[in-house]
């Protein structure tokens, strides 16, 4: 089976007056994947999504969604997608249920409103006016609206905004469940952690342009990530340090008094180090890990890395 593109951007450019919001962006999101669209605030994420939804017209280039032209065939696109937009606003005077009824009617869908609201945990507030909802409740309502009609593609713009950690986890579970049923998920975030936890592939954009597209592991592997392990040991000697240095993935191990400092590359295991010390009869007290995280990688990509590297 040939994989079809759920989203395909080709030379996409958007200029607002003097500001180049999206700069010659090429991107392909395959059907069935969970794709993270990552970039700092103002990088052009929302503008790109706005073009996919035909809220904004590109200056040049094209965008297609599920094989339809995002501008010329926006109605077909909207029929088959579910959207959680950024900076949206609910209708204050309408209840959650009325919002859902409006979506069901608009999509001509045959949906169980209460079941969907139950899934996003907003059912108990269904008959209250949405104007009184908290930010997290509004997010749950709009996610429920996005799920109506089993869309083929979910476009989520900063979905975790306003959610507490528990809510963010539930959001991820719903995204995974939808993806398991074959829905492609495209979501944007400015926080690497959210993307890392769930995405098959990630695009990082900055200043309207693409700086990296890869899987999470690919991103990790492509950078010189190192982890530094600091272990408090009470009875270790230089021979123990020597033994640790021989372990796979370990680059260096130095003993300074009661502290053993170990640096390792991405494929090393800190548990191997701890187990080896334990086997050698070393008493391990506290230990701390300073991981070169994807967050650091993200920062590296989205600040002037040329200068940093030079």
């Amino acid at each position: 089976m040939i994989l079809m593109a759920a989203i395909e951007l080709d030379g996409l450019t958007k200029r607002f007056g003097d500001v180049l919001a999206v700069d010659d962006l090429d991107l392909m999101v395959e059907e069935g994947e969970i794709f993270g669209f990552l970039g700092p605030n103002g990088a052009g994420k929302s503008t790109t999504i706005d073009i996919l939804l035909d809220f904004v017209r590109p200056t040049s280039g094209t965008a297609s969604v599920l094989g339809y032209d995002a501008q010329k065939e926006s109605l077909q696109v909207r029929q088959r997608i579910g959207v959680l937009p950024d900076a949206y606003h609910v209708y204050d005077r309408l209840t959650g249920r009325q919002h859902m009824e409006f979506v069901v009617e608009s999509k001509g869908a045959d949906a169980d409103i209460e079941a969907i609201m139950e899934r996003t945990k907003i059912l108990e507030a269904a008959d209250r006016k949405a104007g009184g909802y908290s930010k997290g409740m509004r997010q749950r309502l709009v996610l429920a609206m996005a799920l109506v009609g089993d869309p083929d593609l979910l476009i989520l713009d900063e979905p975790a905004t306003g959610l507490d950690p528990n809510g963010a986890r539930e959001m991820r579970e719903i995204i995974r469940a939808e993806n398991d049923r074959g829905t492609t998920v495209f979501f944007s975030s400015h926080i690497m952690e959210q993307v890392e936890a769930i995405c098959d592939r990630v695009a990082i954009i900055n200043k309207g342009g693409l700086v990296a597209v890869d899987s999470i592991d690919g991103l990790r592997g492509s950078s010189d990530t190192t982890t530094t392990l600091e272990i408090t040991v009470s009875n270790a000697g230089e021979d123990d340090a020597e033994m640790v240095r021989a372990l796979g993935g370990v680059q260096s191990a130095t003993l300074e008094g009661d502290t053993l400092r170990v640096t390792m590359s991405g494929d090393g295991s800190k548990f191997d180090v701890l187990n080896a010390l334990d086997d050698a009869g070393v008493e391990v007290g506290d230990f701390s890990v300073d991981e070169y995280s994807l967050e650091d990688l993200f920062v590296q990509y989205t600040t002037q890395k040329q200068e940093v590297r030079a």
Partner: protein
Amino acid sequence: MSWVAVAKKDFRDASQSRALWGLVVVFVGVASLLAYAYAEFPTTIAETDEASVGGLVFFMASAVGLFVSLTAIVVCYKSIAGEREIGSIKLLLALPHTRRDVFVGKLVGRAGVLVAAVAVGLAVGYSIGFALIGTVEVVPVLVFLLLTLVFTVAYVGIVVSISATTGSTTRATTLAIGFFLLFELVWDAIPMLLVYVVNGFSLPETMPDWVYLVTQVPPSSSYVLSLIALLPDVADSVGTDSGAEEVDVFYATPELGFAILLFWLVVPLAVGYYRFDAADL
């Protein structure tokens, strides 16, 4: 046909606005008061000897012109600009609606709200009028109601279109109030002032013909003129004059009102839709 869903939602939403209900209460009060005043004191109020239903129709028309223009502004100025400003339009347009569906849906939804409000006010007003005057005349009242419906839709179209040209409610408010001030308050003075200046700072014996055309341009003037064209005998009997007889050009007829009303019904919508369709939201 997805504009139906938009219109229904919009009607539901707008009809829960407290401001609207306040206006309905005010209009019911005003219409009742006008009907009462006209029926009890026709000589003082309307300079006519005897109260008649036809007289009440024309007497009410000017109040309706003012009420409809003001309520249309209150009910519609945020209709599209407001949704763009706060971002609820993103929820609307993420669903399978085209911008035309949204535009038409807004127009129909808000027109429904306003027509309902005007209908309630007029029903109460005429009931009081019929009771006090003691006669019931269906035809002039029905004609009046139908024309008022058209006029209301035209005004809703004007304000929704103004709202569709911008994503800022401040700007929409300025434009809508500016429209009202220009066309409903100061308009009549403009041709006079022009003639006065052109004529060397004095008014001529007779006004140039074009002044008649220009003074009929405001929506509410075209509404009253159309009413005269539809009910010439009633207008005649109550002494309401279109002023057309004194001007000797082909367009100086009450039917001019239809043409101008049609203009207001069509042109603002075309401009508003064109601007909305082309905009980055």
